[in-house]
């Protein structure tokens, strides 16, 4: 593809989003109110698995201020929460969640009753009076357990999924060395600081249902709601306001979203629901919970011959909007940045009686990178080869690009890595870190009795998966510019990123640009913000649209100025003769005024290919042998993003992701009792990293491999901070405590660390 000027890209421009946010003028879901609104409270199952025999709502209904109480009988016409269209799978359909539980509850937190009241306090008091009578059933709290019944005659093992290529048996038969590991990743989630919220409004005059508090994928959720509720596309609107973090888990379609909409229509009043934190910890999607039995075959030089993985994916109570996306991504990405000639993965996709699981930032990648890099560390020890050298030998090289993984299974999507130079990034990173000096220093400290060590995690990320997105850009008669997208802003800096890309392509001041997103009534399409797509897909759409608009403006200016279009340029919103600061000129505002049709364009970016950024994480940790607590002294992220839009915002993504990853590696875990009772439902139990416990993350961002699949070479940055954290921390702890292979499970809580040290 032709190269394009990138003068403004990479610059650390301040964010367009921030002025209202620092003044306390953010308008999040809880800040949105409608006249005469009702407040919804969900009564959730206190049982992990039970058959509902009866529900008594009489006492709750008698409280003053209660307007309506619904059980599943009141909404029996509603279908279960559907998969997104591209995730549909007939085999998984029986495992979808009903809007309210019908005859069974399958996790503590499963919505059973919806209460609609004049006041949220009253609704909460009434919820306490609802009695759910049940017969308890066998509770499954681990995907390792023998599967049970999801429903009568239906196994809780929803599927056996496989990804295979090459002759794995031959690879293991020919191996010089085989390593087998038993590895686990704990149950984590995004836990955004804003809990979920949904406000349903019914415009009876226009017969339009409106959902406020939408996020992440408003257009896709609109499409799902169209199917579920049997309404026309223009009769459902989703509206996104300020959004307090997403991380993959917010903005999926949940039961509560459907309830506020249907209630608004049926009760004739707007309905507001704001999740409390305790509910969030038992109702919003969780993830990561996998158990891998993995083995790798290598020759005498440590070159990988084959890899085989059997793993157990703990899906929780239902299959939600993503279907089997997370285990599938785990299997696709397990081989990562290495040449693995033969590969077989088998996933036991199992329902358990815990909160349903779905995508959380770098879904399937945080897990698979931990597994793969544990294998590499174990191999290095077994073969006596330096762990960096072993990795280098096995890295896919730039002359192998584009690199394809073609799976044998029909229907399993092949993966084609667009480009990248992994050995080059490794060399650059080692130089940047002064790796040898760092290692020597750690060696000295260990010799002096300190438990310190370093670890490494090498990974490939997938981003910017298509198929298409578009944008509309218009210049008004004052020269102000509006970009209309179907993208979504979860706090990552979407508006600034789009404005910066537009300003770069068009030749205008980014501060004069307004970016619209998350409003399904204003634009018919939109890919949303998920799987590191926003910058690549919507950003590329904004870029091509801005270029189209630029051509249009130059053609109009050429006519108005009587000069050839190719002699003109746009600088700071004014068309001038290229490189001339004086002479004939006309502003974009003037062109918009003089041209009958104004000045606007719409264009699309379409691609069948993904863009694959890649990175390496390095951790230095210190273990306290007395308490088992682990201090991350340094964390370093080397990441190739192809083309950087705004360095400051990308750092924010990498550092923020990294600290989330440290949470998952050391502190955070949704623990359940044997009876399926969630033990972590507050921030006192689910410990996300705090300021006193985190390092300053160091970043080295490179742009060595711009993606060939879009004009600017963009690749995603949202998940590169978290992907390899578990892997790097585990390796660092192994070295610190001097026990190769010590870490087999994340998070490494102080209790687990003490146990390892006590048993050694």
């Amino acid at each position, binding site marked *: 593809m032709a190269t394009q000027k990138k003068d403004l890209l990479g610059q650390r421009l301040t964010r367009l989003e921030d002025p209202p946010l620092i003044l306390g003028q*953010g308008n999040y879901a809880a800040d949105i109110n409608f006249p005469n609104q009702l407040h919804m409270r969900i009564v959730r199952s206190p049982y992990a698995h039970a058959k509902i025999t009866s529900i008594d709502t009489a006492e709750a209904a008698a409280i003053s201020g209660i307007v309506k109480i619904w059980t599943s009988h009141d909404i029996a016409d509603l279908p279960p929460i559907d998969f997104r269209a591209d995730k549909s799978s007939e085999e998984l359909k029986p495992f979808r969640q009903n809007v309210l539980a019908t005859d069974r509850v399958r996790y503590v937190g499963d919505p059973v009753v919806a209460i609609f009241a004049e006041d949220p306090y009253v609704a909460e008091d009434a919820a306490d009076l609802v009695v759910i009578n049940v017969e308890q059933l066998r509770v499954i709290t681990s995907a390792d357990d023998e599967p049970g019944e999801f429903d009568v005659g239906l196994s809780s093992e929803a599927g056996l999924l496989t990804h295979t290529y090459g002759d794995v048996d031959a690879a293991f038969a020919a191996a010089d060395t085989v390593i087998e590991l038993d590895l686990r990743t704990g149950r984590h989630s995004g836990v955004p600081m804003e809990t979920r919220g949904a406000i349903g409004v019914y415009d009876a005059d226009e017969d339009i249902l409106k959902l406020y508090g939408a996020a992440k994928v408003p257009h896709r959720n609109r499409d799902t709601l169209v199917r579920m509720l049997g309404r026309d596309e223009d009769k459902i609107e989703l509206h996104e306001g300020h959004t307090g973090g997403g991380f993959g888990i917010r903005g999926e379609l949940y039961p509560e979203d459907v309830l506020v909409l249907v209630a608004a229509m049926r009760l004739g009043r707007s309905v507001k629901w704001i999740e409390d934190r305790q509910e969030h910890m038992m109702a919003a999607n969780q993830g990561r919970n996998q158990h891998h039995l993995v083995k790798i075959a290598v020759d005498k030089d440590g070159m990988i011959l084959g890899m085989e993985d059997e793993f157990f994916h703990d899906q929780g109570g239902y299959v939600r909007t993503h279907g089997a996306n997370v285990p599938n991504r785990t299997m696709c990405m397990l081989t990562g940045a290495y040449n693995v000639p033969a590969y077989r993965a088998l996933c036991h996709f199992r329902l358990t009686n815990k909160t349903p699981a779905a995508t959380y930032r770098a879904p399937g990648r945080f897990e698979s990178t931990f597994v793969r890099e544990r294998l590499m560390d174990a191999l290095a020890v077994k073969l006596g080869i330096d762990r960096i050298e072993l990795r280098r030998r096995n890295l896919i090289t730039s002359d192998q690009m584009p690199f394809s993984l073609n799976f044998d299974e029909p229907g399993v999507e092949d993966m084609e890595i667009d480009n990248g130079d992994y050995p080059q990034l490794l060399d650059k990173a080692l130089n940047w870190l002064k790796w040898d000096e760092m290692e020597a220093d750690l060696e000295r400290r260990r010799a002096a009795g300190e438990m310190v060590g370093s670890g490494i995690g090498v990974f490939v990320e997938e981003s910017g998966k298509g198929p298409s997105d578009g944008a509309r850009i218009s210049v008004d008669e004052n020269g102000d510019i509006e970009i209309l997208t179907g993208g979504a802003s979860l706090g990552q800096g979407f508006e600034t990123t789009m404005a910066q890309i537009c300003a770069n392509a068009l030749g205008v001041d980014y501060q004069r640009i307004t970016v619209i997103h998350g409003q399904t009534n204003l634009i018919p399409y939109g890919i949303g913000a998920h799987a590191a797509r926003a910058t690549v897909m919507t950003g590329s759409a904004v870029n091509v649209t801005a270029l189209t608009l630029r051509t249009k403006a130059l053609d109009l200016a050429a006519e108005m100025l009587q000069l050839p279009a190719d002699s003109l340029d746009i600088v700071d919103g004014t068309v001038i003769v290229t490189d001339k600061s004086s002479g004939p000129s006309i502003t974009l505002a003037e062109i918009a005024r003089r041209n009958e049709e104004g000045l606007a364009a719409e264009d699309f970016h379409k691609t069948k290919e993904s863009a694959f950024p890649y990175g390496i994480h390095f951790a230095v940790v210190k273990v306290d042998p007395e308490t088992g607590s682990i201090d991350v002294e340094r964390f370093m992220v080397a990441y190739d993003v192809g083309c950087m839009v705004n360095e400051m915002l990308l750092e924010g993504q990498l550092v923020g992701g990294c600290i989330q990853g440290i949470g998952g590696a050391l502190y955070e875990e949704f623990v359940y009792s044997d009876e399926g009772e969630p033990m972590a439902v507050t921030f006192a139990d689910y410990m996300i*990293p705090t300021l006193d416990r985190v390092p300053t993350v160091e970043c080295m961002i490179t742009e060595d491999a711009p993606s060939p699949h879009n004009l600017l070479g963009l690749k995603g940055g949202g998940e590169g901070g978290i992907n390899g954290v578990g892997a790097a921390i585990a390796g660092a702890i192994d070295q610190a405590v001097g026990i190769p292979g010590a870490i087999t499970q994340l998070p490494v809580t102080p209790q687990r660390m003490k146990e390892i040290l006590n048993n050694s």
Partner: protein
Amino acid sequence: MTKRSHISLSVNGDEYETLCEPDQSLVDVLRNELELTGTKEGCSTGDCGACSIRLDGDLVCSCLVLAVEAEGKEIETIEGMAPKSDELHPLQRHFLEINGLQCGICTPGILIAAKALLEKNSDPTETEIRFWLAGNLCRCTGYDKIIRSVQAAAEEMRKG
């Protein structure tokens, strides 16, 4: 319904009178009765610091304070932080310049807490900043740019 209580309080220098339920939290009254929605609620258990405000100068989680306890007290919230409508507090300005926020929901609480710190200690060390703000959770930024923003504001404020 229980009998509502009458309370008077001062918020950012403005006097307010309102009715509230005896069990209503201060954050709810600020947000829902006084319509000062800049203060955010993140957990309602005092663990996250999103609802941080000053109550007679003390830094508190307004989710843990009953509104009736604020009777006659002086409250400071994010809405009162900028000295003038067209002038930002140095903390606000440096958070904007250094990208000390992403989604922004924890930001009002962090700004209020940081301002309380700088009034007590005009030259905090990085460790002092880390421990002072350890009760304010942020899930987006990874915290680093928050520290840099507070340091930059402190330096500017010291120079006057």
